[in-house]
């Protein structure tokens, strides 16, 4: 049973008292996984902290006979100068586990968190994702009635998400989750019941989807295109027969919401970027690149360069952006600058090799690539280019070898499979060539979603670091 009685919680801010909740009365149904949604700053995390008993209301109370985990958030409640193992041992001690049990649990935690040898390093060397994952893995060592999850599922890769889901499902009989997330996909994956926190009000919906539709009332525009103006040009082209997956749809909604939030904040006169400014704009540029808006991408990368003229990531991306936009002169200048700032930069060397290749200077191109591959043996572009040159020099076997190796470490780029297909065909292996092409096409199917996921994750971070 969790019931909330006359709960009031406020913060004292510079311009007076700000109420998060006022006289809240609520009763949660038994045994449900609860997903909490709401706009930033609506009090979702505060609500979790109140439930977890680590923050206190001004008035009112929460009555419950359940045990709650600590809120599993990005920060993870760790002592920064202690190692991951030391922290986990301490927390096991806090919860009174015996010495033998702790030893056993620590190994499980190490495996589940997937942070590898970082487990023996101080927590201050972790990224926020790593400490979040460690916190989650550690909490799985205990049998809480409710796990309070604050945005944690958004930090892991697909592998971690899968493990996390399995770990939670293994506990599904005894434990439930109460989860805050901006990712509607994650909420749908874990929760049955939806709670919307908005404007100091908390509404419980028996069905999660109902809560989501109340939160995001607008239907995605992509499904409601009117047949007029430029839209008529698109009619019958693709939008009718491509069935956009449900997760893609919600991903798209998130990206749109985040973009809106960031743009609104950027339009404010007094916005503040809580990190490296050049890095912020460069990341935003990268996102627009992922969303195929090349012009905006260029614009933001140039903005990044106004804060740090030698910012290598932006220079790199600008080179390929100018290439795609056909702005030869700009590309040349940017490339020269990149060469000045970072002479050993992989992309610089690759581009130089390409130039040489275009001028039929194969030996020189190959020499540059070898230098590059000596320092960065894994660089995919360089490997691919090297394979291409080898192929043109009629060493199809060698080219195939390089390309196959490349694909083992980079199995997700369709273009690499297409190139492999050409090499195979040159060797008379037509059937395999066809299969490589087919593989490229099938990877290509999930490519937009992956790009969007990456963009979404970056946008979440950017949104968080932008304040006013």
């Amino acid at each position: 049973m969790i019931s909330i009685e006359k709960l009031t919680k406020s913060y004292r801010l510079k311009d007076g008292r700000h109420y998060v909740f006022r006289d809240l009365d609520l009763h949660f149904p038994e045994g449900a996984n609860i997903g909490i949604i709401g706009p930033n700053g609506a009090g979702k995390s505060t609500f979790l902290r109140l439930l977890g008993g680590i923050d206190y209301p001004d008035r009112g109370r929460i009555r419950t006979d359940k045990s709650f985990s600590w809120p599993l958030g990005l920060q993870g409640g760790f002592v920064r100068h202690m190692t991951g193992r030391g922290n986990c041992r301490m927390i096991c001690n806090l919860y009174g586990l015996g010495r033998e049990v702790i030893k056993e649990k620590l190994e499980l935690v190490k495996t589940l968190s997937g942070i590898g040898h970082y487990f023996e390093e101080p927590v201050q060397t972790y990224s926020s994702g790593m400490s979040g994952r460690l916190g989650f893995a550690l909490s799985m060592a205990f049998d809480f009635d409710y796990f309070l999850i604050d945005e944690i599922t958004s930090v892991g890769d697909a592998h971690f998400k899968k493990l996390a889901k399995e770990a939670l499902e293994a506990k599904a009989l005894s434990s439930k989750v109460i989860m805050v997330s901006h990712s509607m996909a994650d909420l749908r994956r874990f929760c049955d019941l939806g709670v919307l926190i908005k404007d100091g009000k908390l509404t419980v919906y028996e069905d999660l989807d109902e809560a989501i539709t109340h939160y995001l009332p607008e239907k995605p525009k992509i499904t409601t295109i009117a047949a007029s103006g430029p839209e008529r040009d698109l009619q019958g082209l693709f939008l009718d027969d491509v069935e956009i997956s449900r997760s893609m749809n919600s991903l798209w909604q998130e990206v749109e919401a985040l973009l809106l939030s960031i743009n609104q904040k950027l339009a404010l006169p007094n916005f503040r970027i809580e990190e490296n400014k050049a890095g912020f704009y460069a990341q935003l540029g990268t996102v627009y690149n992922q969303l195929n808006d090349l012009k905006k991408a260029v614009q933001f990368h140039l903005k990044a360069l106004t804060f740090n003229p030698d910012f290598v990531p932006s220079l790199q991306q600008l080179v390929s952006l100018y290439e795609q936009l056909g702005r030869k002169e700009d590309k040349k200048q940017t490339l020269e600058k990149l060469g000045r700032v970072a002479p050993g930069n992989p992309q610089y060397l690759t581009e130089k090799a390409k130039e040489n290749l275009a001028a039929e200077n194969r030996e020189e191109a190959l020499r540059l690539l070898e230098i590059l591959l000596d320092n960065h043996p894994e660089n995919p572009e360089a490997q691919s280019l090297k394979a291409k040159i080898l192929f043109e020099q009629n060493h199809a076997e060698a080219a195939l070898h390089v390309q196959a190796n490349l694909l083992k470490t980079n199995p997700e780029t369709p273009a690499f499979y297409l190139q492999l297909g050409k090499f195979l065909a040159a060797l008379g292996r037509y059937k395999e060539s066809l299969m490589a092409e087919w593989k490229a096409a099938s990877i290509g199917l999930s490519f937009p979603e992956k790009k969007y996921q990456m963009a979404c994750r970056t946008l979440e971070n950017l949104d968080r670091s932008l304040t006013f």
Partner: protein
Amino acid sequence: MNGENVKPVTIRRQSPWQIQCSVIFGVFNRELANRFGRFSLGYLWAPLEPLLYIAVLSAIRMQVASGPIAGIDPVVFFASGVLPFILFQIVQITSLSCVESNVGLFNYQRVKPADIFAARFLLEVLIVLTVALLLFPSLYLLGMEFALNDFLYLLGVTVLFLMFVAGMGLICTVLGPFWNESKKILPNVIRPFFFISGIFFPLADIPPELRDKLTWNPLLHALELFRHAAFEGYQLSPEASLNFLFWSALISLTTGLVVYRLCRLKIVTSGTIK
């Protein structure tokens, strides 16, 4: 909970007392690592500070005079003053940052500022006790003569002194988060007490008309009574009063507990301070 579905849950198997012990044990281990783990000399670091004080005081004393102080050897005299004082000082100063330096730990519902305080207090007491148990026998073996006067009396004074220190420490635990500047000011307030708490002179050596101006200080009483209880032949000043120490300890501890009880939620609640 419904009867037959009750699964043994790790979290609830413990009684409140067990929980309290687990938490203090957990925090204690962390504080131990925190205090010693960061310096390469490790465990040697703790006795070094008091020993340095004692050595310097003894050296100065040897330059200006010889013979016993108030009936006991000067080194023993200084040692018995410096150790309790350092305990008092370090408990107050570390208590100020109990909340601030452990924000991460309050993420766990079980951990409250009092647990951190208790663990730190316990650790400091154990350190000073260990140093004392090593130092005094060593001094004896080095040829300084002293004999134990009254063990029960010593135990009583120790308990009262620890009550006094703990009470003040609890007040500091609450004061720290409420008043940020206290972390800068308080160490400077405590430092002069080094000179007026009878660490390097006995109360009996002060002219009687000046004694009234010093006897409000419970530390002075504690140190005098410590020496009286510990060493045979110590010339106790008549102003030193066990009664005064008793009431100071009681008031200090009561105030500390009441203040903590009243503010325990506020110091970890978001949005009430700053």
